[in-house]
């Protein structure tokens, strides 16, 4: 580390370009990382946090296991976690629900894309029209007070009993969150970056693609996490209510037939899929933020 500090002083002193006197250790780290383009190290902190997270989840599962085995939670309500795990692998290996899982995931993905891409486009367009944005602000502020699921029968009348209403609910739940988060991000773009884009003679579309939206990337990833969560809630929740296929329907069907060997593994699968997808997005968000020193 001292060697790095000495080299900084020698280089800069020789060129007479800038001064880095009395460099602190953290500054040395920063300069050393800048030379390699490496992100800020946080492994040690992360390790400790990860350890706590694993301990909390493991402790919760072990507690459930103990309560189930001791008969505090009866078998009909919930089998012990080790039984759920075995049923999970059995169900996955049998492949009998793969078509249902595939259909639900395809609808979740479709709802996510239809909420996310237009949401960003609408947010970006609205940012340029102050009056329209102010007009719509009350709608955005109260939107999540509207019980979208209450409109499900109407959607069935309009779009039939297919996948349309389920996807539509996923989209309606997610799109406003994406619009609002995009607007929040765009509000924080420093004016000087817009002026720099203007000096580079970028047009409005190119400014959005090359400057404002990349600046908002961490916000857009937050929006993606929200859109994904709402897509899961919308699609799986709708399948519970009236669908004849999909993971939500299968969970509801298993529930009414006391089929815990199907219901719990499906619930675990939904949890895993949601957590893994959100985890990937969170990881990406962390990488972007660490590049910005955040």
């Amino acid at each position, binding site marked *: 580390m001292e060697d790095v500090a000495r080299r900084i002083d020698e*280089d*800069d002193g020789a*060129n*007479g*370009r*800038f*001064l*880095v006197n009395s460099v602190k250790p953290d*500054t040395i780290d*920063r*300069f050393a*990382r*800048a*030379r*390699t*383009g490496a992100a800020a190290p946080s492994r040690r902190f992360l390790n400790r946090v990860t350890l706590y997270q694993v301990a909390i989840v493991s402790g919760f599962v072990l507690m459930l296991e103990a309560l189930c085995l001791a008969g505090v939670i009866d078998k009909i309500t919930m089998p012990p976690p080790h039984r759920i795990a075995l049923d999970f692998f059995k169900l996955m290996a049998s492949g009998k629900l793969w078509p249902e899982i595939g259909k639900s995931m395809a609808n979740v993905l479709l709802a996510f894309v239809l909420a996310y891409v237009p949401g960003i486009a609408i947010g970006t367009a609205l940012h340029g029209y102050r009056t329209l944005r102010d007009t719509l602000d009350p709608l955005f502020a109260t939107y999540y007070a509207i019980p979208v699921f209450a409109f499900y029968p109407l959607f069935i009348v309009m779009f039939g009993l297919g996948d349309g209403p389920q996807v539509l609910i996923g989209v309606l739940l997610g799109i406003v969150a994406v619009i609002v988060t995009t607007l929040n991000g765009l509000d924080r773009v*420093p004016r*000087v*970056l817009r*002026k*720099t884009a*203007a*000096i*580079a*003679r*970028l047009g409005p579309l*190119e400014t959005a693609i*090359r*400057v404002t939206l*990349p*600046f908002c*990337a961490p916000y857009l990833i937050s929006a993606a996490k929200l859109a994904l969560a709402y897509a899961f809630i919308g699609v799986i929740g709708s399948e519970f209510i009236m669908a004849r296929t999909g993971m939500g329907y299968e969970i509801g069907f298993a529930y009414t037939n006391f089929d815990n060997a199907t219901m719990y593994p499906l619930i675990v699968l939904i949890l895993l899929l949601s957590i893994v997808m959100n985890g990937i997005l969170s990881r990406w968000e962390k990488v*972007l933020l660490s*590049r*910005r*020193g*955040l």
Partner: protein
Amino acid sequence: MAAPHVTLHGVTKRFAASAGGQSVHALGPVDLTIGNGEFFAIVGPSGCGKSTLLELIAGLLPPTEGRIEFEGRPVAQQIPDGVGVVFQEDACFPWLNVRDNVAFGLRRTTLEPGEIARRVDRAIAMMGLGEFARGYPAQLSGGMRQRVCIARTLVAEPRLILLDEPFGALDQQTRLLMGDEVLRLWRETGATVFLITHALDEAAMLADRIAVMSARPGKLIDVVETHWPRERDSRIVEHAQFGTVTSRLWKTLRDESMKTMGRMAVSS
């Protein structure tokens, strides 16, 4: 003075009133001619319209009245080709590394990729950022980030460089050294430089001519010629003439600064 490069004829700027308020007369009328290859500086009290003047010349704002010409062509709310601006604020793109920041303005040009790489390498080397080319702005000091912004401006090879208090956030030592850098680049590129600054010594050290602006609405109330040789650096502060220049600037500026601070009545 060399052939005119930038000319302003009766340039005035008024900002529209906000709801219920009055319009703000920010600037002018200003008449000014800057010669080709000249290093021209503007000093003035806070809020006198210095940055507005720079943004008008850059084409970032339209004048309310008057006409601005760059290389004989009117600047009418359209960024002219051949103009580069370095702002006071950190204008690095935080998601791009140093190299991509510097290359930013060249990505949409018709230059060959090889030529882009050559120009970027040269600008990075010129600003002493070679070792940090893969680093991100968050990993650099304020002075280094400002040098990234200067490199990004230079790489486009502008014929007119507008500097809006580019060293405002830097410490005095770094400012002097950055001043040397700017003088060196000015000599090497042959570009015309228009500098806005609060610092009288900075203006006196760098510029061939220095205009003093009045309190708002900003007008040019004095123009001081320094008569420095083209080959100069920060050691010019030792020159006997340096004190004369800064004294004259301060003499003109003092009353205007007091007006801005609302202290005129107290002092009289």
